[in-house]
């Protein structure tokens, strides 16, 4: 009997690894934090359209949020990130065609480059905040840009998109926030 012990142990380990493989990851990477939670509170300086100088320590900060009762999208982006630039028309479509406010949070970006990218009257964002120190990034658990977070009327995060938005994502956001769906 003891002769077969190594074989038995080997078989058990194989079965364990195989079962873990078949079950997939216990925490799906898809959404996760902070979906279902109130949007983390982060205070950041505002980028004013046309601004070309960096915000100073004296620049007032505002919360990265809208008042309760209003649904919106928070989009982490940067002017140096190509997928983020490619995503701008889709965000503009969300904002102008579907009337969903979009807060843009520019990570490690310069005011001058934002002005170069977005111009004097950005169509893609209702408001742009500057996140030089990654406060919003770390609060949202983001590892890179772009990322988008859909916030419901109760101030909770409904969905998280860990990559640039596709047309299907845009449709999903519109559906999630449409009053007909009885969205929160």
């Amino acid at each position, binding site marked *: 009997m003891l002769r077969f*012990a*190594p074989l038995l142990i080997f078989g058990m380990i194989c079965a364990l690894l195989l079962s873990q493989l078949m079950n997939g990851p216990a925490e799906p990477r898809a959404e996760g*934090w902070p979906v279902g939670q109130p949007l983390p509170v982060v205070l950041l300086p505002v980028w004013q359209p046309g601004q070309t100088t960096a915000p100073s320590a004296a620049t007032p900060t505002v919360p990265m949020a809208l008042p309760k009762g209003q649904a919106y999208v928070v989009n982490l982006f940067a002017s140096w990130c190509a997928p983020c630039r490619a995503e701008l028309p889709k965000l503009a479509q969300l904002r102008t065609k579907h009337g969903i406010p979009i807060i843009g949070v520019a990570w490690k970006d310069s005011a001058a480059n934002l002005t170069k990218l977005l111009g004097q009257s950005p169509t893609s964002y209702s408001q742009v905040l500057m996140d030089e120190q*990654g406060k919003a990034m770390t609060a949202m*658990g983001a*590892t890179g840009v772009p990322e988008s977070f859909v916030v419901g009327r109760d101030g909770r995060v409904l969905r998280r998109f860990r990559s640039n938005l596709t047309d299907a994502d845009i449709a999903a956001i519109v559906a999630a926030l449409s009053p007909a769906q009885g969205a929160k």
Partner: protein
Amino acid sequence: MRLAWGVFLLLPMFAWAQPVPESPQENTALLAEDILAPLPAAEQKRARDLWVQLRCVVCEGQSIAQSHAPLAADLRLQVAQRVAAGTTSEAIMHDIAQHYGDAVLMAPPLNPRTAFLWAAPLLFLLMGASLCFKYARRKRHG
């Protein structure tokens, strides 16, 4: 026979192997260092110890203390600021793990999902020992 035993008895030496010394890179750590500079030495050490315990989520196998990544610099800064604000180490680690998942902890927590991970080294050592014993016994009888 003697060689087999010798090799087996030397195995635990690997337990004394030291990890590569970890020091933050000056160019990316400037901001966090500025926060730490005026703090008492014990608090500075507390922040640096936390850096070593947090994995850089955008690099392979580096702690945020070692990494050049901008996101690692942001996390170093955040840890330094919260240490300076007097937040406990447990609260800091808890919050970051909540945002990034357990994968951000250099030492994964012991729970049913990770039990095999933690038990594996001991398990493999025992399997190796039993093989050595069997080999030795066969030699003696053969």
